[in-house]
């Protein structure tokens, strides 16, 4: 008689048993009722809330409507960040497909698999999230939250437009940097708590990499602050109103390179290739989140995409004139979204083309090349103010000349990019090759 292992019956004990029974009993009654009169209940609920807020606001605490406004804005920001992450996950897989001459997800959702990340989320939610036996329980459970929450908090201080910001503190640039700095702790805690040597290596690499790349990141931003004199993101954005040539990236040559060093450092700070050593798949299996499964893994995954957009948003606001349009039209948050998504696309593009670099090369790159270079840029940008002020007409002329020269270089780069796209599309048959054409109906 062959032995078929029977699943041990699961006994819900104590409080969870009571809650489970209560919930099912209550749900059984309330939900069908609600379904029949869904719409009236919904409208009634809104009316009640508004009335409550108005009454309390009028008589008890005049601040309440503002609190509700802030609450709604925060929930909106949270939703925006989640949407950004969801679109990011789906976008990354489509971009990867396109770069590797395949289609990417096509099945979930009708058009080009748009519901892929929702399906992933659903799959992860019902996956069992294991905890290794000797893992450090509370730290293991806490790590994803410490990785995720700061990434969301960074959005509080990010201005999408002049009035479009939750709270415009005059240190909002530093606030966003600080929030991105806390994320390290979550990853290190996760790596340490999963009690496996591989994830400990991932945590160690994460520790070295992020702490050391914060300095060049901060310094290249300081170069921009030195040029405009204020640390508040809104004022930084406002300083770049006017067309293409008034953007901070073309303000002086030092700032032009500061954008690129900032971008490289931001790649390292949100663990994107070629700096994705903490979860170096081919060496460390999956780095710090090897032992994580189910919804905890989704949090780490989300944190990465949310941080990615936050870092690109910072770059657009400071260097690429955030919500101002290059061609002089009205400056709306739409421009901000376009530029940020373009920078996020570049991060994905880099990930699927470049291999990973080694941990000692990461360190050498930071200490020997990036740090001195950004120090030089900061020095140069602050000294530039001596030249670029109206009292010295000669220097001022020279400064303006260089100013427009850099703008033209920027235009050339953009033109090069679009030319590459047109060239790629024009002879896609030859590049992709018949092989793919025969097999890929949609390519």
């Amino acid at each position, binding site marked *: 008689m062959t032995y078929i292992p029977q699943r041990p019956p699961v006994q819900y004990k104590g409080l969870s048993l009571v809650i489970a029974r209560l919930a099912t009993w209550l749900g059984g009654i309330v939900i069908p009722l609600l379904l029949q009169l869904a719409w009236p209940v919904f409208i009634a609920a809104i009316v009640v809330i508004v009335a409550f807020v108005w009454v309390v606001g009028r008589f008890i*605490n005049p*601040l309440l409507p503002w609190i509700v406004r802030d609450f709604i804005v925060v929930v909106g920001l949270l939703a925006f960040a989640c949407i950004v992450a969801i679109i990011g996950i789906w976008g990354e897989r489509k971009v990867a497909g396109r770069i590797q001459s395949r289609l990417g997800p096509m099945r979930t959702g009708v058009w080009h698999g748009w519901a892929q990340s929702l399906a992933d989320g659903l799959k992860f939610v019902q996956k069992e999230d294991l905890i290794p036996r000797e893992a450090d329980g509370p730290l293991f459970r806490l790590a994803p939250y410490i990785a995720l929450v700061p990434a969301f908090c960074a959005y509080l201080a990010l201005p999408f437009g002049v009035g479009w910001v939750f709270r415009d503190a*005059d*240190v909002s640039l*530093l606030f966003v940097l*600080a929030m991105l*700095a806390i994320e390290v702790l979550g990853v290190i805690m996760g790596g340490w708590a999963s009690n496996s040597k591989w994830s400990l290596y991932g945590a160690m690499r994460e*520790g070295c990499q992020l702490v050391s790349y914060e300095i060049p990141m901060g310094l290249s931003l300081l170069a921009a602050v030195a040029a405009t004199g204020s640390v508040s993101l809104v004022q930084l954005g406002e300083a770049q109103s006017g067309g293409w040539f008034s953007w901070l990236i073309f303000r002086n040559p030092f700032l032009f390179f500061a954008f690129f060093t900032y971008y490289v450092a931001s790649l390292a700070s949100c663990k994107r290739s070629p700096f994705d050593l903490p979860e170096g798949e081919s060496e460390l299996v999956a780095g710090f989140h090897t032992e994580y499964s189910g919804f905890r893994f989704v949090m780490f995954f989300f944190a990465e995409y949310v941080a990615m957009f936050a870092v690109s948003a910072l770059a657009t606001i400071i260097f690429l004139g955030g919500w101002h349009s290059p061609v002089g039209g009205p400056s709306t948050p739409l421009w901000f979204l376009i530029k940020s998504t373009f920078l996020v696309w570049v991060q994905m593009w880099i990930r699927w083309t470049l291999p990973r670099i080694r941990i000692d090369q990461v360190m050498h790159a930071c200490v020997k090349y990036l740090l001195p270079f950004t120090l030089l840029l900061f020095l140069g940008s602050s000294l530039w103010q001596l030249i670029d002020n109206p009292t010295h007409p000669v220097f001022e002329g020279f400064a303006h000349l260089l100013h427009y020269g850099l703008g033209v270089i920027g235009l050339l780069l953009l033109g090069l990019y679009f030319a590459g796209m047109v060239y790629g599309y024009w002879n896609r048959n030859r590049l992709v090759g018949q092989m793919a054409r025969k097999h890929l109906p949609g390519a």
Partner: protein
Amino acid sequence: MLETVIFFLFAAVAVVAGLAILLSTNIVRMAYWLIAMLISVAGLYFLMGAYFLGVIQILVYVGGVAVLLVFGVMLTSRQLAPRLRPGPGEALWLVVVATVLLIGLILSVTHARFDQGAIVASNSVAEIGHSLLGDFLGPFELASVLLLVALLGAAYLARPKAPVQGAQQRKGTAI
């Protein structure tokens, strides 16, 4: 009313974290309780309107110092674990020092005059910048020299023990 609620929240977290640091034995948990306390102190700074100080507290302390502290603690936790339980002799000294400090604290709290002066939330970043490089330039430069010395000391202590023999590819790169 809301501020006082949040203030007591942050204060409670800070006190609980401080106590937890003293009481817990797992050294990695102590490090994370320290981080919780630092963040709650940063929250208090925000409440007082000193935004720059709060942000720098998070950026420097939590983002830098605490990460390296956790880093070090994780690597050496096995060697230090047994020494965390105070022996009989040490317990006596602990009690003595604790009482002295407690008395000092109580006296200073009772005699201090808490005046309710309004806190001016101005554009503090510019002012801090001017004062740092203005009248406080001396201590500012002195502090940077001190940090430089500490940096050199750490680098000396962590120098590669002996050049790694047989590194036929490249000179020893001790990580």
